[in-house]
């Protein structure tokens, strides 16, 4: 009787340990997956040689720009692929981002200057408010704000909605504005995060046009 009790207790203990080990393994796998996801395509700021403003280094440099298909303000679907043969500046921005709004006049000026050479800007709005697809009121509010801003600034290039849906492909976009300069073959030749200067952007546009 005493032996039976001992055996039964041992069986229960072993089963409990099995269950706990199973949970521990699942937790470990979950954390590993999260680490992998967090590390994927993340850009980083590295110190500039000789001091000065840290430079943004994107893991997309030299690689094909991730494809996307996003709706513009009229609802029309715009794809990156349709711009193959042109140099493109993919500019991630948001209405609440003051530096983004400061650089908009530069983008307009540079776009108008280089359009004839086969250059276009795609302004990808990235409000970061995690709207659900079913939240039609939320989307309408965002679109109204974006449309109002684009009209006030007289933006001549396509303004695309729902940049959050492609932000992971482009490095997570923790900071805005974020710009990716794509050459005529669809390869990322330069990238920047944060407000820089019009001349710095122009140099990167010229690089995209001549690569």
């Amino acid at each position, binding site marked *: 009787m005493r032996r039976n009790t001992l055996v039964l207790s041992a069986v229960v203990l072993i089963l409990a340990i099995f269950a706990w*080990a199973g949970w521990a393994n699942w937790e470990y796998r979950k*954390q590993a997956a999260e680490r992998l996801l967090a590390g994927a395509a993340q850009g980083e700021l590295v110190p500039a040689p000789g001091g000065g403003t840290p430079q943004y280094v994107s893991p997309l440099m030299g690689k094909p720009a991730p494809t996307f298909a996003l709706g513009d303000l009229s609802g029309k679907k715009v794809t990156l692929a349709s711009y193959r043969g042109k140099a493109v500046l993919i500019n991630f921005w948001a209405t609440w981002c003051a530096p983004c709004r400061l650089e908009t006049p530069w983008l307009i000026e540079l776009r108008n200057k280089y359009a004839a050479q086969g250059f276009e800007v795609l302004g990808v709005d990235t409000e970061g408010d995690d709207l659900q697809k079913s939240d039609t009121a939320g989307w309408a509010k965002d679109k109204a704000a974006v449309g109002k801003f684009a009209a006030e600034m007289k933006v001549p290039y396509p303004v695309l909605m729902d940049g959050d849906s492609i932000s992971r492909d482009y490095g997570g976009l*923790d900071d805005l504005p974020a710009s990716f300069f794509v050459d005529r073959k669809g390869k990322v030749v330069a990238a920047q995060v944060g*407000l820089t200067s019009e001349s710095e952007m122009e140099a990167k546009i010229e690089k995209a046009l001549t690569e």
Partner: protein
Amino acid sequence: MQVQGLGSMKITMQLCTAIAVFVFGALAAQGQVVSSSAQNRSIIKTDQVTYLLPAQVSVPAGRPTAVTLHFLIKQGLHINSHTPSDEYLIPTAFTIPDGAGVRLDAATYPHGTTFTLPVDPTVKLNVYTGEFVIQARIVAQAGNHLVQGKLRYQACDNNACMPPKTITVPIDVIAK
């Protein structure tokens, strides 16, 4: 009988050995989880805004009572004030969810300071930096309530902005 006793002891020893092996294996798995947790913590970024205090307040039940909430903004960052200079900018706002047993009667925010971007000094923003306080007037039902208040804000540095964020403001409210 002696032989039976010896057999019994042998089984018990084998059982104990088996248990020891399983426990060792499980502890090794736990070690993996702990070390990966530690690694996970090392890649978590520091919060842009942190709630400092109070963790607990005692208030008279049913009567509006002022509570001073202290927050700290990470060095190098600023957040929009409750009344930002532009309609597009996201204001800092404190709320308490319904059903918490505690109601936010009113919140008084500090005046922000004027901030200009180095690139364009003509653009003036109204922001908070460093430590700031919000005076929250709350009304609590009698009892002990663990309130999960919310602070929504949007932070920037001199050149870039981060997406809007909401942090939890946990306050243990004791109302008598």
